[in-house]
């Protein structure tokens, strides 16, 4: 029952072709160290799930790890512009986009968390998304009301969540915005955490009521301080503007691979640290 793994070991859990839910939102608390290691291990044909992605999805698209993206929004925010490698991969036909309203991703994950094949959605009642995508259908209401749109469940094979702290059993806490992360841990078949800090179980118990992810749902824990960087982590660190700018200026694969290389030391540093359990 040893849950604490190295980053390489944990990433080896992810299979080519897996449906992978990524925690965080746009530039905030994305599980970037895990994403980088997936790229290093050359995962293929991943089906990515996220309401609103940015650097995580873009990086995996840049290195040909992605088959499809289920999301409502993929872009850096205002200051950093669009997601260039994602765009290129989609426009060249390498990556399929299954565009959702962010809410329909949420509803599809709710369906998975309840193990039902679909979830009714109120708002999606007009437009081409409904027409073009076979994961939406409109049915009659058997209770006699208006027609109802259903979204098909999305069951991630694995959810990757970067948390502020957890114990060796995976009892984990996120500070500040939780985005869809807690839901993802209930929807996915397997949950892998990367964490800023591994703390003693007794310390986690002090505020047991505010644990977001109970350990019995968690398959693996990886100790990766700065594991969301260059994205932000609430109250821990802000975005790394320089790293993002340097990445966004890169044109070719070699540059991006060397960008990955530069993070290696940092990404693997946590596993060499003493862990107090």
């Amino acid at each position, binding site marked *: 029952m040893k849950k604490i793994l190295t980053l390489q070991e944990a990433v080896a859990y992810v299979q080519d072709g897996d449906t992978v839910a990524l925690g965080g939102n746009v530039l905030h608390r994305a599980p970037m160290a895990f994403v980088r290691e997936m790229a290093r291990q050359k995962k293929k044909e991943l089906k990515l799930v996220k*309401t609103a992605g940015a650097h995580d999805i873009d990086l995996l698209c840049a290195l040909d790890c992605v088959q499809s993206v289920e999301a409502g929004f993929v872009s850096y925010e205002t200051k950093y512009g669009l997601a260039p490698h994602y765009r290129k991969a989609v426009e060249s036909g390498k990556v399929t986009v299954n*565009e959702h309203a962010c809410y329909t991703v949420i509803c599809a994950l709710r369906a998975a968390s309840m193990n039902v094949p679909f979830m009714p959605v109120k708002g999606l009642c*007009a437009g081409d998304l409904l027409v073009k995508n076979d994961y939406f259908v409109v049915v009659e209401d058997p209770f006699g009301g208006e027609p109802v749109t259903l979204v098909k469940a999305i069951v991630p094979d694995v959810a990757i969540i970067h948390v502020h702290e957890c114990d060796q059993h995976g009892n984990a806490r996120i500070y500040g915005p*939780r985005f869809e992360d807690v839901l993802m841990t209930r929807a996915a078949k397997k949950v892998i955490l990367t964490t800023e800090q591994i703390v003693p179980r007794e310390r986690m118990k002090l505020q047991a009521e505010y644990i977001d992810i109970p350990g019995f749902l968690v398959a693996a824990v990886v100790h990766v301080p700065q594991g969301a960087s260059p994205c932000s982590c609430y109250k821990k660190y802000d975005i790394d503007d320089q790293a993002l700018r340097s990445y966004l200026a890169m044109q070719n694969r070699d540059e991006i691979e060397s960008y990955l290389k530069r993070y290696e030391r940092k990404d693997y540093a946590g596993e060499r640290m003493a862990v107090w359990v």
Partner: protein
Amino acid sequence: MRTSYSVSDIMTCALARMLKDGETVFHGVSSHLPMVAIQLAKHMQAPNLVHLNIPGGVNPSSLKKASYSSAGADLVTGAEAYFPLDEVFDLSMRGKLDVAFLGGVQFDVHGNVNASVIGDYRQPKVRLPGGAGSAVLIPTAKKIILWRTKHDKRTFVERVDFVTTRGNLWKIVTPLCIFEFRHGKLHLDSIHPTSSLEEVRANTGFELLYDEIKYTPPPSKRELDVLKKIDPYEYRALEFQLNR
């Protein structure tokens, strides 16, 4: 005495003035302009607005650290409660979201919004970021206010390439003017004093509909003072600095 103001100032003021006291208002990512506008309205006519956002801070007390994100944790610090995105959506579905500020890349005279693709959906010429929450919020929030910092013939078209969504569209604010959606069509509502009917017409891909020519009132001294206080680093102008 004339006060000087920028296009982002007048757009922010225009957005802010559309809000009534007590309303429940949401904005998403890449939304610095409405984020500042909501705070402006709270300092002006609408102190009891309920400001909702993606990270979930209800009525964040300050925006001063939100330099690169309108979905950042700063919106949670100093907020009065936590009410995250999934809950905001549910709220809108229940008909209890009064106003949603949303974006889009292409708009047509029929009130359709495209935030998805230029060209074919499956083989797009240009893949846009996607509509985020638009496709469920535009049909359910009571009033939809759109904004776009570009106003040209590729943005305002006769027919969008792809209908990401349509619904309770009320106003669209651009650098040149404000459109209002009524009787199934976009109507020219007011022209910013920094622009002209000719400029709007030359940059709009459909025939302009209007009853009379009105001009957007310029930002007042008080509005500009408040803006300086609540948005000293001019995040409201960020979108103009990176016009793609």
